């Protein structure tokens, strides 16, 4: 217990020490311009503490320390969904969101696609991956081909598994909805960034009787997925999915580091709530304000 307490206390102390030593003098200078954006020093401190935590836990994982990661039912359901598709002899539909490849949600979705493709390759289940952007098409084709090759099922790989369908949001949606109603996939997996089309896709999949798993980091679309899908990965679970599915200790270490930073943030929020409640929180607020 004492050891855990020390682990939390030391970075917090270092964090505050940095802030006091750097942010206050900069604010007092009245914004004198230098090449380095001194007013962003608090963000730099946070990046350093965060990186240190992730790397520390990754190192521990590498050394063989057992790391507990809670079960995420939505991710566990992926294999079950592919199994159902195999039994029914129907395809699995995977949509890696509607954003470009420079969006981290799309990269997370492409990572999950690699895992899903390995399972579909293993069971020889047809896979359909419609995409909205050509760059996502190229990345998706590469990942799926690699997955089929790794599973020794190169013969089952077809370049048209990942296909470009339309560049416009609603044109994409109507094409995929048509695909759902004609092909009747046994499982629909929606991972990545979704917008107004989230409910259009999920409701159509629901009407087609598919088992549906969704994951997005956009809070405004989550209620729609929760209402229409069987499982939903919320926010950080989307980014954790590839590590969780890989079961590699090295990648799970990153998740634990992230959890540790969350504990620090919760403590910082509680301190802020107390200070603001007693009307003495102005200095504290300034520490976290980023220009």
């Amino acid at each position, binding site marked *: 217990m004492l050891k855990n307490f020390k682990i939390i206390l030391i970075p917090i102390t270092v964090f505050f020490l940095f802030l006091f030593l750097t942010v206050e003098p900069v604010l007092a200078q009245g914004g004198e311009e230098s090449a380095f954006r001194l007013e962003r020093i608090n963000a730099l401190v946070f990046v350093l503490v965060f990186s240190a935590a992730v790397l520390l836990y990754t190192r521990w994982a590498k050394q063989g320390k057992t790391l507990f990661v809670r079960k995420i039912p939505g991710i566990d359901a992926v294999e079950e969904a592919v199994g159902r598709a195999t039994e029914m002899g129907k395809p699995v539909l995977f949509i890696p969101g509607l954003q470009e490849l420079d969006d981290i949600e799309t990269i997370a979705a492409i990572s999950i696609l690699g895992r899903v493709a390995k399972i579909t390759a293993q069971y020889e289940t047809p896979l359909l991956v419609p995409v909205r952007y050509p760059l996502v098409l190229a990345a998706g084709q590469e990942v799926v081909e690699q997955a089929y090759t790794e599973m020794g099922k190169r013969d089952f790989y077809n370049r048209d598994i990942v296909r470009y369908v339309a560049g416009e949001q609603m044109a994409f949606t*109507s094409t995929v909805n048509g695909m759902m109603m004609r*092909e009747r996939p046994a499982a629909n997996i929606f991972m990545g960034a979704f917008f107004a089309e989230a409910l259009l896709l999920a409701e159509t999949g629901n009407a087609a009787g598919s088992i549906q798993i969704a994951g997005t980091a956009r809070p405004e679309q989550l209620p729609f997925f929760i209402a229409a899908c069987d499982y939903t990965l919320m926010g950080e679970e989307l980014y954790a999915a590839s590590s969780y599915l890989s079961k590699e200790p090295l990648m799970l270490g990153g998740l634990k580091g992230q959890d540790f930073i969350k504990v620090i*943030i919760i403590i910082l929020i509680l301190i802020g709530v107390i200070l603001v409640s007693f009307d003495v929180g102005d200095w504290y607020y300034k520490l976290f304000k980023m220009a």
Partner: protein
Amino acid sequence: MRTTVPVVIAFLSGLVLAVSIFFRPDKTIIGQIEPEILVWVTIVGGFTLFLGAVSITRVNFNTVRRRKKGWGYSLLTLISVFVMALPSLLPSSWSPLFGDAEGSIYDWLFQYLDKPMMATMFGILAFYIASAAYRAFRARSAEATILLLTATLVMLWRVPMGEAFLRSIHVALPELINTYVMNGVNMAVQRGIIIGAALGAASMSLRIILGIERTYMGKG
């Protein structure tokens, strides 16, 4: 080689972009890198559009050729793609129907076919919301009942007639719903999800930059 080169590129790009936000663009070269790389991304994206055109043509052409289920839709897609794209690629100096200016074939198709169809798809969303809400708001459990009651209050507050009704019960009721439901519970939960997602994104970015996570290349 196929793994090392992308990992090195990801490391250098990620590191440079992360560092560049701490430097002023007008005073350092590193501060100017971010907008420069965004231009590169746009150029690369433009070239890859050709890949998209090849993919959409091949998939739909094969469907039509093999008379697969729904081949008529594929034929329509192929016709739409080429009827929309080809006249817009021809120079407008040949005919006012070419190019993408007002009065061209492309503009006509966009204004009178594409836009109304997109608007129709968006309009259909209302019916989908109704069917999803019906399923979500069925009072099957304590949680679903709380959701039903809260959603009813919020929906009432959002429409003028409902707001008038709430005010007839108590004049401050709409403000109370706004303060405690929307700006209280709802915002707290949303912020919790946003903080978690932001940390997840940062953690994943770090794993990619350091080469720990290679699943986006199909490795690992």
